[in-house]
């Protein structure tokens, strides 16, 4: 029983693969096509929807109820007949073929009494079961499908084995069954930017690239785009975003020169120990003995500051009046006021200061005790009141900071306006911040969002920050706002009550841009979004084409293809340096670059998506050429070369792939076999059960004489292991001619001659990598479906399930029908139903 559940793949799929794939069992409309009216309502009919409602299960009932309103209203009648025809066809095949087959081959173990492996098929096998009831078990059907696809069931020991055509019939029927599902783009969530996306977006937002680019996300935790992305924002992450924003803005935004004008009459003061508030009209203040003007000033940078005091005094006793300026209690300068009250003059001093906000006070230094009298005032317009004693009036204090550094090029570009003639600070701020926030949020701002951004500028402005520092504060707020850190949707009119809606043009631009470039939309995409034309099929197709030929498409290779092929592990791959001293940092990089070049090469029309399995070319530089055994290639640049060696080609024989599927000091046929199954054929073997020692555990005296192959075959003595390993191991041994860093060899890690013979289920024999690749090529359509599913998962940022399977079927069929091109796949994905729609739970 244990075996039945856990062990996959004994490889009948290999045999079955030679059978031609029957055309789709249904005639339903393809959701991936774009009809003329905005986005299509996809497959199915009212009939289907209503059934799906019944089948959806209680937990989904609510969302179906909501979406059904949409579907029912948009569905047209002709397809309704198709829908019920589809159900009838599925039902007919079920009764005539599928049910008898399942009863015959599966019913003996998976019935209500035995339910081996916790699988009970009796509800599906009862002749009393209606088609509705049969359809209701989608999870069970999915399980049946994967067991049959992998060929695991029925177990080998079972005498009754279905024929290949019977298996095929079941697969075709299941495909038809899947098509009866309600179209659903999947629950759409606001996605946080991944680390690479964050870095790219910051650079694009500030318009820097190449040497000027910043690695803003360097301190963020590593992550990967696609299923299982960690979308949350922990306190640690919040802090890192703030620090990153600080670092970026400190680099790009230079503080203006401080030029602060203070009117002492407006400022609070202590006069003879009594608090005296300043007057808003700017009435200047007449100082007497113990008066002290108090305020604070923000000094933006380290350097020499010039203080200018305009003052006049009435003295007595022949001693000139002295005023001291103090910052945070320390005297930083002193002036002697000789001008008379009626004719005030300007007195200047300079001092070096550290940056920061400091308390500023102006103190009357040399009063005489007997002359202590309350302050008098003069109005700015009127004549001074006659002081009874030594008095001083300070008309203004001007602080001029050290000359600012020249604004960076980024700042000059961002600061489309500065306050000055004809434009006030808040208008200038708006003309800078509104376009910036629109780009940062990747959609037009709502009124409250604009008001928020401007309020942060106003906050800084009210605190006497320089204009550029206030802008900087607002930019910082934008960079830690959810609308920037997450991809949020624009709200379209009339979508409030609908669960499933087409996405807007801005959201489409964003999806497209992050999928292909890993960054925010560029000007051109924003333009299409603004003109609301991006969703039009010809515009979307043209833009996608443009994006595919832009250098930024490299993102698809680094963020999608490299993790898929495991080449992102190369940099940190543990390797036995003694055994493989040539595996330097440079070689690792070259292996990685080869993967990038190969994947990007697939976008050329001359290359096919199936080149991944086998190709007659490779990309090499001087370092990897040595691994390939070529001598004529020079230099660090990747060059496309034609392979004369039939045993090389595709990703399977790529040195990087061979290295990441090896152990530190030897090859691992199991890992290599697993790579082919999981990454190319989407047949991930189940994890090994507990209490099974790893292979090298058997490295004992008794086994020392055995070859790696013989020892690996020990695995297969255990029936718990055999069912997976009988496919995994032959594939891996087919690559034994390549060592742990991908060089050709005739003797293995133990000095024995390499035996690359293998036999796959279905008596498919091979004796070299080339012959194995030939057999794999017979399963190229399964590979196309795998890469379709992987790329779709990447594009949508979530696991594929339910209706997605139908979409994947359609997309891969289209890619196959149109000649196996990667750009075709990308075009199909960006025009697919899930990509163009959003499912929102209100």
């Amino acid at each position: 029983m244990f075996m039945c559940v856990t062990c996959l793949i004994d490889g009948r799929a290999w045999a079955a693969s030679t059978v031609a794939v029957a055309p789709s069992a249904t005639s339903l409309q393809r959701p991936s096509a774009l009809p003329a009216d905005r986005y299509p309502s996809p497959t199915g009919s009212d009939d289907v929807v209503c059934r799906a409602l019944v089948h959806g299960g209680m937990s989904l009932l609510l969302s179906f109820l909501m979406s059904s309103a949409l579907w029912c209203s948009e569905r047209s009648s002709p397809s309704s007949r198709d829908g019920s025809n589809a159900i009838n066809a599925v039902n007919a095949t079920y009764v005539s073929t599928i049910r008898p087959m399942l009863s015959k081959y599966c019913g003996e173990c998976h019935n209500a009494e035995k339910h081996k492996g916790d699988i009970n098929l009796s509800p599906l096998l009862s002749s009393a079961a209606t088609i509705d009831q049969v359809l209701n078990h989608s999870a069970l059907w999915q399980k049946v499908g994967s067991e049959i696809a992998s060929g695991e069931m029925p177990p080998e020991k079972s005498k009754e084995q279905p024929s290949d055509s019977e298996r095929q019939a079941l697969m075709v029927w299941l495909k038809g069954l899947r098509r009866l599902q309600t179209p659903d783009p999947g629950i759409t969530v606001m996605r946080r930017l991944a680390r690479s996306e964050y870095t790219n977006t910051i650079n694009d937002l500030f318009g820097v690239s190449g040497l000027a680019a910043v690695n803003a996300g360097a301190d963020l935790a590593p992550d990967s785009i696609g299923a299982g992305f960690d979308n949350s924002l922990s306190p640690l992450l919040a802090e890192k975003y703030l620090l990153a924003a600080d670092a970026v803005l400190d680099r790009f935004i230079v503080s203006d020169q401080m030029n602060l004008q203070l009117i002492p009459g407006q400022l609070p003061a202590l006069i003879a120990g009594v608090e005296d508030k300043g007057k808003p009209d700017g009435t200047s203040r007449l100082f007497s003995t113990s008066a002290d003007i108090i305020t604070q000033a923000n000094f933006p940078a380290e350097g020499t500051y010039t203080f200018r005091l305009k003052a006049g005094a009435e003295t007595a006793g022949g001693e000139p009046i002295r005023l001291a300026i103090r910052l945070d209690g320390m005297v930083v300068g002193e002036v002697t006021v000789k001008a008379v009250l009626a004719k005030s003059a300007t007195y200047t001093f300079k001092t070096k200061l550290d940056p920061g906000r400091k308390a500023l006070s102006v103190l009357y230094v040399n009063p005489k005790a007997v002359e202590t009298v309350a302050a008098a005032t003069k109005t700015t317009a009127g004549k001074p009141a006659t002081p009874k004693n030594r008095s001083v009036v300070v008309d203004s204090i001007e602080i001029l900071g050290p000359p600012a550094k020249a604004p960076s090029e980024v700042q000059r570009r961002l600061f489309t306006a500065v306050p000055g003639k004809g434009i006030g600070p808040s208008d200038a701020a708006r003309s800078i911040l509104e376009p910036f926030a629109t780009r940062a949020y990747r959609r037009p701002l709502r009124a409250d969002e604009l008001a928020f951004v401007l309020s942060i500028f106003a906050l800084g402005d009210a605190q006497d920050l320089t204009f550029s520092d206030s802008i900087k504060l607002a930019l910082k707020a934008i960079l830690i706002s959810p609308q920037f850190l997450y991809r949020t949707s624009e709200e379209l009119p009339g979508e409030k009550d609908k669960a499933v809606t087409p996405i807007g043009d801005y959201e489409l631009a964003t999806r497209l841009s992050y999928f292909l470039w890993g960054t925010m939309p560029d000007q051109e995409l924003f333009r299409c979004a603004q003109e609301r034309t991006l969703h039009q099929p010809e515009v979307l197709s043209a833009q996608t084409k443009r994006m595919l030929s832009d250098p930024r498409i490299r993102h698809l290779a680094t963020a999608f293809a490299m993790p898929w092929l495991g080449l992102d592990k190369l940099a940190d791959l543990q390797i036995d340096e003694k055994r493989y001293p040539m595996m330097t940092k440079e070689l690792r990089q070259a292996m990685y670059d080869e993967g990038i070049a190969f994947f990007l090469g697939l976008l050329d029309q001359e290359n096919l998506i199936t080149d991944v399995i086998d190709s007659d070319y490779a990309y090499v530089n001087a370092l990897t050429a040595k691994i390939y055994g070529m001598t004529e290639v020079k230099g660090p640049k990747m060059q496309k070369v034609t392979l004369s060696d039939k045993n090389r080609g595709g990703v399977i024989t790529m040195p990087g792939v061979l290295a990441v599927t090896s152990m530190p000091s030897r090859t691992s046929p199991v890992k290599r076999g697993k790579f082919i199954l999981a990454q190319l054929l989407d047949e991930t073997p189940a994890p090994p059960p507990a209490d099974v020692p790893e292979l090298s555990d058997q490295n004992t005296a008794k086994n020392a004489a055995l070859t790696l192959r013989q020892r690996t075959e020990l695995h297969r003595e255990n029936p718990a292991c055999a069912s997976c390993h009988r496919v995994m191991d032959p594939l891996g041994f087919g690559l034994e001619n390549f060592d742990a860093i991908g060089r050709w060899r005739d003797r293995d890690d133990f000095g024995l001659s390499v035996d690359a013979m293998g036999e796959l289920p279905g008596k498919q024999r091979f004796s070299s990598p080339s012959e194995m690749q030939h057999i794999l090529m017979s399963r190229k359509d399964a590979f196309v479906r795998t890469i379709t599913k992987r790329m779709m998962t990447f594009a949508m940022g979530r696991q594929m399930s339910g209706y997605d399977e139908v979409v994947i079927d359609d997309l891969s069929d289209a890619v196959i029908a149109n000649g196996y091109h990667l750009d075709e796949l990308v075009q199909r994905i960006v025009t697919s139903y899930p990509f163009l729609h959003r499912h929102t739970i209100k």
Partner: protein
Amino acid sequence: MPRFPMLSRRTCLKGLGVSLALPLLETMSWAANPPSGSAQQPTRLLFVHWKNGAVASRFWPKDEKSYHPAMALPPTLEPLRAVLSETLLIGQIKNPCQNLGEDKNGAAGHKADSACWLTCAHVKKANGGVDIGISADQVAAEQLGQYTVLPSLELGLAGHGISGIEEHGYSKAYHTAISYRSATQAIQAESNPRAALERLFSSRRSAPQKRGAGPTGPKVETGKFASAAAAADGNAESSLDKVMVDKVLEHAKSLRSHVSTADKRTLDEYLDGLQSLEKRIVAIERQQAQAEAERSQGGKKKVGVFSDPIIVTMPMDGAVFSERFRVMADLMILGFQSDVTRVGSISNFGDCGGELGIKEDVHQFSHNDPNRADDPMLIGCLKLELLYMQQVAYVIQRAKDIKDGSGSLLDHSIFLCGSGMGEGRHHNNDDCPTIVAGRGNGTIRTGRYLSQAKGTQGDLLMGILARAGCTVPKQFGLNGTKLSPDLS
């Protein structure tokens, strides 16, 4: 209330060997004790996790009596000899997660190891996301964290991320994270010691200050006035960053009405993260101001009952696992010593066998045959376990050596060191190696081996939380129902 010595910038920097900006360190002060006003030192909690359990026959003592520094110890426990009297070893603890994951094939196994250890909840596939339960350290962080600049500090040795999905449909987080802020939010451990140091002693000084006050405090002689002005402003002692973050928060709340139900949760997590940041800015500024005030009043070091701050030496590139572990342990101890945090964890050791000549994935060594002494997997596994135990001993000894008021830091701490698996080869999650160290301010009876636990893992965690002064929920995880009877 005891006052701590102030950290001098020089003391800490001299060990670093590199120039590292530590603006706050010179103004380090110490947070107040819980309002209870008790004279005792706060209890610090540390969780140290290693993976894949331990080979039982080389780990567990033959009986309770033989767990004694003077007796022969099982080989794996040997490094603990010097601190044995400070520890409590507990056997046969039940964790509820054994083989109850969604896959019947003992799939919980290695995944439950990290994820279930402090949550006592099942791992679920959740479409590649995280769905488990809050972890015990985060319960503590929520409550004890309000007294400190950092509610908790999660350190890891390997930089493995929590994003992504494993090939069998489980979130990667289950493998790499032991701490969960909520059922759906795993915590990424900080693996860069420099970043951890900066996080412990960061400064907000670079941010423009709001008018009214700042970390330097009102220094003018007429200070009365300045503070009056600040009070009138309604926002005394805050930087513009704090006010700005406030406004971002407020605005982000308004975004809730524009997003879907699913996104509301995401947004709430965002708000939660940002709120913590805001509190942290406030706490740091308060500490800076407090330290500044103390210093301006001529506060001198009160040396004697407290050790000088320990010196942390930053690792060079290419440092081996044990060197890196010690840096992380030192940072953690420094965090406890300076009361920057009271809750911490060290986990995610990664492939740490380099210094033992082990290059392979350490996991595979746990699938060994303990009955064959020459099994290379067994030999490797025992070497690794010995290495782990040396690190556990190190962090315990470090805390023991630090004077902390009336006793040692260890006396005022509870360290839980262990694994979430019994033995890797069995994929079982019960009978896990469990070492409690420290006396928890007199609430833990150490120097014992309890061969047969009376409580479950959940009870143990509840018992630890309660002893650290936390209010404990009626139930914790799937099997915590009472305060563990095993600890005192």
